[in-house]
């Protein structure tokens, strides 16, 4: 082992790009965990991940039961109507036991913790959303250029 001391992480910039429950939660948990350790955190929601900060969508997020090898479920079963809703209910129960909040409350919690929430302009345009569709905690809509600027000094984590 080399005798090296590393600088502690001071800031993280987390990108959430997937819109399924299993795509959104890891980023939220990592951002919240960073704040709990005194690490600055910003979260950038892009592509389908954007749904986590769209008022009408944020609480309808589901587990992907098709094309998700982690589910250990044959595609044909995952495609059965109601399967995704069922898996979502099961997972939410487990998360509730760990006191992991629903998406809207999680976003509120992040905002209160001082984490900064941003929406991706390209994704907003692509899905025809406007500022009025976003939950109030969103600080700003950023271009990719803005995103990199705001991420100065941060470790960028893509999820």
């Amino acid at each position, binding site marked *: 082992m080399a005798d090296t001391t590393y600088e502690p992480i001071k800031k993280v910039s987390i990108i959430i790009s997937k819109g399924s429950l299993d795509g959104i939660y890891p980023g939220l*948990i990592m951002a*919240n*965990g960073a*704040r*709990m*350790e*005194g690490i600055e955190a910003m979260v950038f929601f892009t592509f389908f991940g954007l749904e986590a900060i769209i008022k009408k969508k944020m609480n309808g997020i589901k587990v992907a039961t098709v094309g998700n090898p982690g589910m250990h479920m044959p595609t044909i079963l995952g495609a059965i109507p109601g399967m995704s809703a069922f898996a979502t209910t099961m997972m939410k129960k487990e998360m509730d036991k*760990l*006191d*992991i*909040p629903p998406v809207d409350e999680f976003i*509120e*919690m992040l905002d*209160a*913790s*001082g984490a900064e929430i941003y929406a991706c302009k390209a994704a907003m345009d692509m899905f025809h959303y406007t500022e009025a569709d976003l939950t109030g905690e969103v600080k700003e809509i950023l271009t990719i250029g803005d995103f990199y600027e705001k991420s100065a000094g941060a470790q960028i984590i893509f999820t």
Partner: protein
Amino acid sequence: MSEKTINGQTVDVDAEGYLVDHTQWTEGIAGEIAGELDIALTDDHWKVINFLRKEYGDNGNIPTLRKIGKQSGVDMKGLYTLFPDGPVKKAARIAGLPKPKSCV
């Protein structure tokens, strides 16, 4: 584990300064640990400390940040103001409890 004298009392602490035995804790110890963390204890700090000690006594667990924010009488924003850069860890250490193990 090592011994440390806090507020005139000899207590056992772990490598990160958490009390090993929460029954050795006193209010005086809380004040001194808080001082080490550059925190001057106010009534709101005490609400959180007492809530943590009660929960730990009842369930043997340190509550999650979410639960503290909902039930201690201090909200999430307040917790981050009272215990900057680590609300649960700092509050637990001041309350004489072990290092929190929860991820949320």
